[in-house]
């Protein structure tokens, strides 16, 4: 069945949220992602995050990964050096 407009909007929100999260904590380069389409770089960064948290490493923005991204947390990046 096609997604309802509401579901589709929710999907977009999740995608934007995940992009912001991955840019902040995993150094995802800005401005190269297509909406709703996982580029290989985004997928790699998602895998890195999933591996850190012991989630199933799929490279996809699955519900468990999104749930972890929404948990309250520290603002220091997991990967990479502070400048």
């Amino acid at each position: 069945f096609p997604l309802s407009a509401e579901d589709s909007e929710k999907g977009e929100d999740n995608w934007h949220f995940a992009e912001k999260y991955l840019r902040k904590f995993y150094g995802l380069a800005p401005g190269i992602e297509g909406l709703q389409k996982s580029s290989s770089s985004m997928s790699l960064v998602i895998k890195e995050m999933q591996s850190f948290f012991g989630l199933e490493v799929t490279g996809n923005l699955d519900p468990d990964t999104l749930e972890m991204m929404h948990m309250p947390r520290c603002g220091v990046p997991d990967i990479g050096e502070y400048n």
Partner: protein
Amino acid sequence: LFPRNLKWKTTNVTFRIVNYTPDMKASEVDRAIHNALKVWSDVTPLVFRKLHKGTADIMIAFGSKEHGDFNPFDGPNGLLAHAYQPGNGLGGDTHFDEDETWSTDSTGYNLFIVAAHEFGHALGLSHSEDPGSLMYPVYSFSKGFPLSEDDVHGIQSLYGPNPNPPKVKPHPEAPKKCDPLLSFDAVTKLRGETIIFKDRFYWRLHPQMVDVEQSLIKMTWPVLPNKVDAAYESAEKDLVYIFNGIRMWALNGYNLVEGYPKYIHKLGLPKTVRRVDAAVQITGTGKTLLFTDEDYWSYDEYSGTMDKGYPRSIEDDFPGVGEEIEAAFYEYGHLYLYRGPIQFQYSYTSKRVVGILRANSLLNC
């Protein structure tokens, strides 16, 4: 550790509280900061000195959104705080998001826990992958000394141990799923998944996933105690019952059912029973088996009473599994019973043990 293992060059580190949150009394903030620093000075030779003016190594401030370091906070929830690794200028500085609600207990975000985590960064620790460590990046509330062995190893690799250590006991590292000596505290099904409790942690095993997920119990169910003795699912009621000592909790997903915790004696167990070792519901029968020491009881879920003729001996009725059981669950006509690092597969129809494996075969090890 951060790249290049950055650390303070001296063991005398200064701090200054630049401003206070209105969520707590100033004295409560002082106490939380003092205790959070003490967590680290207890296990290292570090000595912290408070400054009331001027520039300290660790400048502590509350701020919201963009607060002067081009590293903005995000309003309530999400980011709670951040701290900079040791160094000049911003180095060591620790910022808390003023848009959070800070507290001395678990009603808001506990300032002591968040501050202790951030001071770990300010002293040179990066994030840990161990979900039971203080340096795990996701917040969870717990009582007692917050450091795990992983945190202690990290900080002592930078500064060494405290020559006069006080008596503090760090949490052991998170149990490793493929440790051949691994035993389980409790196992239950939960809406098609298998939940395995061990110490402060649980593993979540999905039938279609090879990898298992390990988390702190408190992170998912803050109302539960840190250790679980026994657990079982009543699939018909969509409830999972959790046992610890003489208390039991009923969970509907993430939520505690109203009216719990209750005493286990409400089930009909005598007052002499002080804990349930293992619990399991036999699917389709409405019967729940409760294992206590060398005996087991049968509880009828439909009538809410204990069946007559119990307790019975585990050794007599489940020949081959020994005298006591630590965890149990039921699946497809088989009762899986756990004692130490061993799993017994007991056929409920043929009334005998049909397989013996290591307990962590359940975790695909």
